[in-house]
């Protein structure tokens, strides 16, 4: 579903991502694990088309992210780390706006929004301006905008950052609930979050991919990480 083929990203003389090759299967949940500055966000920003790779290729469902950006972006739902949303908009209005931008037909909008609202338990805040919501709700709205067009691939950048324990558990359950139905790529620098959420983990350090392991075959992620880092 998603492939990274010898992807490198340089900013001047600084190399943020170096020669990363990786394949993510359909329905799989992949975690990108690494400390801050390891290249996780740069890697997924290249996948979303926000950045272009300096060399190498990335593809989603067989479409190249540089040469067929509209095809790849239609298949992606993306939640940036800061969970951005238009604060002045009401939740329903924001979801309608994002769904329309991502090509959901006007006749299909009500059903798409209702389905997403139910999946993320947003019914009670649907008519509220986003800037009045709690951090937990804002994070759910950010995930909702990424799912409202039923993308094949969901990309989450540090999805549990700044959440309280209950919200972390809810977010983890939500992501796990997508297993098999969506391809999910999430980044985190928290070992326990990755260990509990993903099917496979890719460990990055200073822009290089060190290893990719199945969680079923990795009983002690902390030990593995320390042995590599």
């Amino acid at each position, binding site marked *: 579903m998603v492939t990274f083929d010898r992807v490198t990203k340089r900013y001047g003389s600084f190399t943020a991502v170096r020669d990363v090759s990786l394949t993510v299967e359909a329905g799989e949940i992949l975690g990108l694990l690494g400390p801050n500055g390891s290249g996780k966000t740069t890697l997924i920003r290249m996948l*979303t*088309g*926000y*950045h*272009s790779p300096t060399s190498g290729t990335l593809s989603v469902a067989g479409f190249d992210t540089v040469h067929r*950006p*509209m*095809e790849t*972006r*239609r298949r*992606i739902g*993306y939640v*940036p780390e*800061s969970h*951005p*949303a*238009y*604060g*002045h*908009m009401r939740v329903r209005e924001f979801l309608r*706006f*994002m769904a*329309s*931008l*991502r*090509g959901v037909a006007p006749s299909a909008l009500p059903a798409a929004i209702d389905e997403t609202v139910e999946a993320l338990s947003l019914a009670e805040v649907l008519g509220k301006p986003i800037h009045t919501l709690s951090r937990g709700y804002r994070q759910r709205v950010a995930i909702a*905008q990424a799912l409202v067009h039923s993308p094949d691939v969901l990309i989450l950048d540090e999805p549990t950052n700044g959440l309280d324990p209950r919200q972390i558990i809810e977010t983890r359950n939500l992501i796990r609930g997508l297993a098999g139905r969506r391809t999910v790529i999430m980044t985190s620098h928290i070992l326990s979050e990755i260990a509990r959420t993903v099917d496979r983990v890719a460990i990055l350090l200073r822009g290089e991919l060190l290893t990719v392991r199945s969680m079923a075959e990795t009983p002690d992620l902390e030990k593995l990480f320390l042995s590599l880092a």
Partner: protein
Amino acid sequence: MRTLGVLLRKELHATFTSPVAWVVSAVYLLVAGYTFSLSLFFSKVANLTYIFHQIYILLVLLVPVITMRAFAEERKADTLELLLTAPIREIWIVLAKYLSTMALVGGLLVLSFSYAVVLLLYGEPDMAPILGGYLALFLLASLLVSVGTFWSSITENQVVAASASLGTFLMLWFIDSIAYLLPAPADLFFVNLSILGHFTPFVSGSLFFSDAGFFLTGTLLALLLTTRALADR
């Protein structure tokens, strides 16, 4: 086109619910109305030449305040990342921002047409310079809005965007002064960059394609540069 409609609706809502837009509108209408009333009572002449130059100055000063938020606000709030990773072309985002700001500035110019209506009701004004003047103001507004939008697209700091826009507008206003120091034909180049030089003929009732072309070419160039600035990341 549907994408442009979706983006434009969002931008119009953001523009017309912004307190900045209402404050700028109030300042514009207060100053322009005050100047019109005074000039009419003092001169008792049924033309708007003075008021057009007054509005010219108001646009140079106020457009940077309106355009500064266009992209800078989105960049700072990270919502630009949502737009730029959606399956839409950068040009639609730029056009939606430009058109929504033009709707506000154009609305203010339409409101100021009430001055022409007053002259028509109580005098016999020559309509050619009046209509030419309004056309010039729309063309000027188009250029200023597109340049202001460009500056907003390359920074996340709204004050920087407004300052850069104001500096550009003032330079384009006074740039022809340097022509006195330059030999021909270099002097002509700078004379032709002056926005006031291309604005004044309209107000006196003379319409030249070259003047209209200056404003339209400048607008297109600034919109193109804005699109490039968004795409180059």
